[in-house]
């Protein structure tokens, strides 16, 4: 998952990337970067071939046979969060304006206890391939699966486009190739990798990526601290004296201006993680509930450690890069864009080899996140949309085939939209995806698990309301309405509508559920217990 401000600085319009005179310094791909890139690409393909030999069933392809250990899953979940948007964007945000980016980091970390307390264990106990499995225990299957599948595909698509645009920009910048070929290369690699290897391959790439990301970040942070003799005061003083806003880099500024906007953003982040399909799928890959909650604990610790290191990297980049003509121009903007702060810092403290390694890890990060998105989208397409629209379960032979076809289709969609969105500011898509997850998926999961009174009609009306309202209000917000579409003053004054859409969705679900009871034959059980999911077939 991903930080709004960080990803905005990472995937924003090319203007920031093209502003500096020494783009050529960045575009000349260094030998070390190419070597590491090739090594990672070959490694991911080898992993996918290895996993493909084991992916002989739906369970193995979509959930790695539920055989992932809690430690492995914790690393994989952390890997999902240690994305390029977080690594590059958060560091770049700190470099640009100080502490504001860390507010997002704290918000994302605070969302994990919510996931652990409310959804992790019930998901593992009741789900098999998608979070809709939990909903359909109490509710009518066809409409619920269609709604859940639609919501998942929408969220995955938005995430995918933002990742593809970011990948194209990053690869183009680091390796000196065109944006179009970069997007196509990443997309094809991603399709092959995800289609062949499935969830086991995606998990192992996330694990390896997480280890490399933590190792690389720890190396950079340690080298920065060594430069200052592990004296944090010296680090802060140097950074403050180097930055145009001086000591204000030590305080939160941007998020303090509008309390309601900040609160709405926080609500969206806090509850959005518990509704993101590619995060929820992670709980189906472990063996039991104990492993599910342990994996969340491990992930929370690792993500917290990662954010702490990014804090040092961000302030270290201010202290060591600003004013250095090797890395920044006279105004302080880094060559290639502020989002390249960690890479420049790696070069400053560890030389070209460390910089090349970090660049390749950033690429691996994108590949890993995208593969997870494809698997989540493919699983939902097969288990929710196809089942919901057809009204029939998929047999063991067809499920993996349909999942692979869906992964290819989603991958191709990602490539096409990535090519179409060249130069666009697509950071709002990530915010929108999080808002949908918080407004549509999370309320349904929460009520389905903890309230017996939820009816199918209430879930459908409420979930649809959450989905549409979050999309419409985000579109009418300042970023999309004014900046992206250029339609003048925004109709809705906030970028994140979650403060309004989350409680409204809960209210609509409740209101419709109590307004009209469903007949007994509509899957309502008399007791607060639900049927266990099973792939039983009947004549």
């Amino acid at each position, binding site marked *: 998952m991903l930080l709004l401000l960080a990803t905005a600085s990472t995937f924003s319009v090319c203007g920031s990337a093209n502003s500096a005179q020494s783009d050529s310094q960045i575009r000349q791909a260094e030998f070390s970067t190419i070597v590491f890139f090739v090594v990672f690409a070959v490694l991911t393909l080898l992993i996918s071939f290895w996993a493909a030999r084991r992916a002989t069933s739906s369970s193995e392809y979509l959930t790695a046979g539920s055989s992932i250990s809690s430690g492995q899953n914790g690393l994989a979940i952390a890997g999902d969060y240690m994305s390029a948007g977080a690594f590059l964007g958060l560091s770049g945000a700190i470099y640009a304006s100080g*502490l504001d980016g*860390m507010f997002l*980091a*704290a918000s994302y*970390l*605070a969302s*994990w*206890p*919510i996931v*652990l*307390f*409310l959804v992790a*264990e*019930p998901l593992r*106990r009741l789900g098999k391939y998608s979070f809709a499995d939990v909903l359909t*225990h*109490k509710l009518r299957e*066809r409409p619920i699966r269609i709604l859940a599948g639609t919501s998942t595909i929408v969220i995955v698509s938005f995430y995918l486009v933002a990742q593809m645009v970011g990948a194209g920009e990053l690869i183009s910048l680091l390796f000196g190739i065109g944006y179009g070929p970069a997007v196509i290369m990443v997309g094809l690699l991603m399709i092959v990798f995800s289609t062949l290897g499935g969830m086991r391959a995606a998990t192992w790439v996330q694990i390896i990526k997480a280890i490399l990301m933590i190792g690389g970040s720890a190396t950079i942070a340690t080298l920065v601290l060594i430069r200052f003799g592990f004296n*944090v*005061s010296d680090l*802060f*003083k140097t*950074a403050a004296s180097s930055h145009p806003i*001086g*000591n*204000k*880099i*030590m*305080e*939160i*500024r941007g*998020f*303090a201006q509008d309390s309601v906007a*900040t*609160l709405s953003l926080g609500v969206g982040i*806090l509850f959005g993680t518990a509704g993101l399909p590619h995060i929820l799928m992670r709980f189906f890959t472990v063996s039991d509930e*104990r492993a599910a*909650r*342990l994996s*969340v*604990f491990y992930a*929370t610790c690792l993500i*917290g450690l990662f954010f*702490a290191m990014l804090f040092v990297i961000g302030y270290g980049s201010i202290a060591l890069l600003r004013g250095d003509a090797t890395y920044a121009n006279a105004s302080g903007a880094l060559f290639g864009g502020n989002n390249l702060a960690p890479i420049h810092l790696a070069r400053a403290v560890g030389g070209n080899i460390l910089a090349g390694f970090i660049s390749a890890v950033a690429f691996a990060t994108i590949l890993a996140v995208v593969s997870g998105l494809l698997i989540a989208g493919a699983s939902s397409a097969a288990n929710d949309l196809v089942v919901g629209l*057809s*009204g*029939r*379960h998929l*047999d063991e032979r*067809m499920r993996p085939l349909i999942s692979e076809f869906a992964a290819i289709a989603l991958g191709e969609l990602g490539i096409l939209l990535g090519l179409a969105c060249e130069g666009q500011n697509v950071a709002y898509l990530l915010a929108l995806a999080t808002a949908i997850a918080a407004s549509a998926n999370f309320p349904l999961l929460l009520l389905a*698990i903890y309230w017996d009174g939820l009816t199918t009609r209430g879930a459908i009306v409420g979930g649809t309301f959450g989905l549409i309202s979050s999309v419409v209000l985000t579109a009418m917000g300042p970023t999309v309405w004014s900046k992206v579409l250029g339609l003048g003053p925004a109709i809705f004054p906030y970028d994140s509508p979650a403060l309004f859409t989350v409680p409204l969705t809960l209210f609509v679900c409740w209101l419709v559920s109590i307004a009209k009871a469903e007949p007994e034959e509509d899957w309502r*059980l008399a007791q*607060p*217990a*639900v*049927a266990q*999911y*099973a792939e039983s*077939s*009947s004549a």
Partner: protein
Amino acid sequence: MLGASLDKTTEVVPLRVIGNRLGALRFQLPLVMIVSYLAMMAFLIHSARQATQTAVVASDFSPAMIALASCMAFSVALTGLFVFVRHGD
């Protein structure tokens, strides 16, 4: 191509966990997390507005940094607490 019609199984398992001793805690802990997060947010906003009036000295961790770090540490601690309590179940 497609298998059986959608059908409901007859085996049932308990869905909700209110039967065990962690039932109330499962709802209290999220509330604690949400309240602490909101408190952190309120402090940051208040601190930022105070900082415009007084000079901030960049020699050590600012109050905002401490608040953020505390919230992050609290998140980790709370997940650890839950796992520890549930470990015996």
